[in-house]
């Protein structure tokens, strides 16, 4: 709720400022609407080279040809988005909203405490002026220095465009082309920032990379663009998001994430998404329309997606793997929890192109309240993918009789030596399990949390450890008020 009132307040502020984004380059926000001038403005603000602007404009012109044809196949409903009624650029230097934690909504603090988040991090997440109180900037710089020594490039993509244009040029849009889909096209035109990671040959990145350490640009805005390249024989684990509910002023998020794994490289990408889901009646909340895709280009390359999706009022997200390299493998582990009026349509695509490619999909959907939770996935085995192997498991758990769980898998096989397997179940929490837990003195909520965590265990296990611990608590919190 706080987020909404802030947004409306901000909108009111800006509406008073009607002119001048051309003359006053220092302005904090570009005016509402989307046109070529806005894109030129964003590009100029970021001091981008000409080719980058050209790319953006190409995407924008293509987007115009799409009309207002958003994809409609997902099982989600939301009012039409007026793309001319949004802001596409807000300066990254966001002002701190609070002087101390005392001013922050106590409900938020309560959640942080439940998640066991240290006080300092709480301050950062809630938007307290961290520069003054938070000393981990030095921690971040130490890390940055170490990574630099190893040859890892880990920087905002807007910086990488300038410092490593050859890499960005080569890989940007090579996995998710600007013409990929409505939201990816929009993102290509107006993306504001995001991460760029390059792991050099043969290096096993010694620490988990996370946007978290890049404190100075945690407000990457609604159109985030991430590009990760793992060169031959390298390994990297990347964490995105945070278990804590983050303050966010943008309702529409259309991010694009591209991963490229070359020969023998491995990328592990973990996401915990807990954006504002709207209130009990489905008012407000983030629209999360994300395109995430990995290209396993090299032999024996491997990509593993893990996601825990608990937030956002609408989730539209299909982290995918294009398995081109011989022997490459893709894995997708997902927990999606929807409560109240949330809608999630999420899953993956595994495209087997190379020989002996493997994929594994484990999806756990939990719906409660009046929410709707859909797994939508595609496993495609192309003619040349001899010996390809896929295993898919989708389980849905229903809590309450007003929610829905859907499973929509597509399996398209063109190769006789390929083996695909798909299993799916839908059920509710068994009375016996609940009874057993209650017998042993647990409360109803504790029992449900335990059982649901057991249900998700296979996925949560794949998260880096600290993340996993927080995610477990998050699972319980997300379902609060759904039982009893």
């Amino acid at each position, binding site marked *: 709720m706080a987020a909404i009132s802030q947004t409306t307040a901000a909108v009111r502020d800006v509406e008073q400022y009607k002119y001048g984004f051309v003359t006053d380059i220092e302005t904090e926000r570009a005016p509402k609407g989307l046109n070529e001038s806005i894109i030129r403005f964003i590009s100029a603000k970021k001091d981008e080279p000409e080719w980058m602007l050209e790319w953006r404009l190409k995407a924008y012109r293509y987007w115009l040809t799409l009309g207002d044809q958003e994809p409609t*196949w997902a099982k989600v409903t939301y009012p039409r988005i007026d793309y001319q009624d949004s802001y596409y650029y807000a300066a990254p230097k966001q002002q701190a909203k609070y002087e101390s934690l005392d001013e922050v909504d106590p409900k938020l603090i309560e959640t942080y405490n439940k998640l066991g988040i240290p006080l300092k991090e709480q301050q950062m997440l809630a938007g307290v002026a961290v520069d003054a109180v938070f000393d981990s900037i030095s921690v971040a710089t130490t890390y940055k220095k170490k990574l630099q020594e190893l040859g890892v490039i880990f920087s905002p993509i807007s910086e990488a465009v300038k410092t490593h244009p050859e890499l960005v040029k080569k890989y940007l849009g090579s996995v998710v082309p600007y013409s990929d889909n409505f939201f990816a096209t929009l993102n290509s035109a107006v993306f504001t920032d995001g991460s760029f990671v390059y792991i050099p040959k043969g290096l096993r990145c010694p620490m988990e990379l996370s946007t978290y350490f890049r404190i100075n640009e945690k407000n990457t805005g609604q159109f985030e663009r991430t590009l990760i390249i793992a060169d031959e024989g390298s390994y990297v684990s990347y964490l995105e998001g945070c278990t804590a509910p983050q303050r966010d002023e943008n309702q529409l998020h259309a991010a694009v994430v591209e991963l490229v794994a070359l020969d023998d490289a491995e990328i592990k990408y973990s996401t915990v998404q807990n954006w504002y889901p709207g209130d009990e009646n489905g008012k407000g909340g983030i629209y999360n329309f994300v395109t995430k895709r990995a290209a396993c280009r090299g032999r024996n390359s491997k990509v593993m997606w893990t996601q825990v999706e608990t937030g956002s009022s609408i989730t539209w997200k299909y982290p995918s793997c294009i398995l081109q390299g011989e022997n490459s493998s893709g894995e997708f582990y997902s927990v999606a929890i929807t409560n109240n009026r949330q809608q999630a349509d999420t899953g993956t695509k595994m495209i087997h192109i190379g020989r002996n490619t493997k994929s594994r999909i484990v999806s756990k959907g939990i719906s409660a309240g009046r929410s709707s939770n859909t797994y939508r996935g595609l496993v495609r*085995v192309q003619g040349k993918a001899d010996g390809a192997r896929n295993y898919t498991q989708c389980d*849905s758990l*229903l*809590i*309450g*009789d*007003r*929610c*829905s*769980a*859907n*499973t*929509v*898998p*597509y*399996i*398209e*096989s*063109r*190769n*006789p*030596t*390929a*083996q*695909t*397997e*798909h*299993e*799916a*179940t*839908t*059920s*509710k929490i068994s009375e016996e399990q609940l009874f057993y837990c209650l017998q042993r003195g647990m409360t109803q909520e504790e029992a449900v949390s335990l059982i649901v965590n057991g249900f998700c265990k296979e996925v949560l296990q794949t998260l880096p450890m600290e993340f996993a611990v927080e995610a477990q608590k998050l699972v319980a919190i997300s379902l609060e008020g759904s039982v009893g």
Partner: protein
Amino acid sequence: MATSFITAHPFGDAYAARAGALPAVAWLESLRRFARAEIAGGLPGAQVEEWRFTPLTQLAKIGFIPAASADDVDVTAVPLDVPVVPGAVRVVLVNGVYRADLSDSLDGLDLRTLRDAVSSSKDMESAVGRVAPLSLPMVALNTAFMEDGLVIAVRGSVTRPVHIISIGAAGSSPVAFHPRVVITTEPGASLSIVETHIGLPGQPFLANPVTEVFVAEDAAVRRFVSVTEEGDAYHLATTVASVASRGTFEAFHMGLGGHKAEGTTRQEIHVVVNGEGTKVNVSGAYAIAGTMHHDFTTVINHRVGGSASRQVFKGVLDGRSHGVYQGRLRVAPDAQKTDARQVHKALFLAHGPAVDCKPELEIDADDVQCAHGAATGALDSDQLFYMAARGIDPETARALLVEGFLAEAIAEIGDESVRVVFAAQMAAWLQRRGGAS
């Protein structure tokens, strides 16, 4: 989305002239008007989700004429390879029209032709279109152009199964026919139907049969359908069944295509569960070769809880054939205690075939048990090795394994004498394949 439908298709004016084949009763005229309006929207193309694997783009280009206006079609006997179902009443339809000369006597049976039923009885108004919705494109097409078919109104238990033999045959031009079979039951009644659909060589034809089944309380309808395709015909069949409390609906559909087959078969089965304690089994098997396209599409809609449904589908694919299975399982809000299962497995016998599978669950109630499984692959090399180690030659071993693979689906046929007939047809397909390769 106007581009999703193919509006330029041959089902237009030539057909309007045939509308007089059925008596011009008011209710039928009105129903046909609605149907024509639906069809005016076009035939489904690849953009229509339900038809993405079986778009009718090619079909729309063929200049079909109404089968009944083709005067050079001459079928004088039922082909000898049509299996005999022991004790069954034979009813023969040629291009969708009842042929008394080839059929057994219908005296004393609750069975009439659609033409008779529409002209002689008033209760047809509530029977035709009662369960099959015009929103399904093939049902709309059928409703707009149907000329004949059968009406079976079952009272009590029918001991003799009814064997419907449907023969498609084109003369010098491609023909299309749209037979309608309406089956209604009184509470407690039961009926077994066997259907054999075949085509005679020649020009392509389009068979667009629609079967409506109304299963009353405690009634049971068992239906076993086999479609054999050797040429390039289109067989787009839709079955819609509505099942009341404690009713039983069992269906088994088989699709066979020889190594020269290049046609398209789609067997679409919709079941609406409208009462508690019903038992639904919709299963099937397909064995296809050549460039044949075979599509099983099922929608089981549990509108009321406390029922069980089961689906077992298996397919083997040879040549450059294309197999499709789309199964949607829907459990409505409050349809608690539903137990629904669905499985599809496809086996590749060669390099070349393609399989598309989409088993869908749409669950809006929590106290349910729903599961589906799907798998594709080739024969298990371990099993082949096991057999080779026991001195079984590879060809026999393969045949045994394929037969065993299909047997799991065939076992779903509840009626033993029918099971024998279907198993024999399947075995013959496998044998022909052995000879062909």
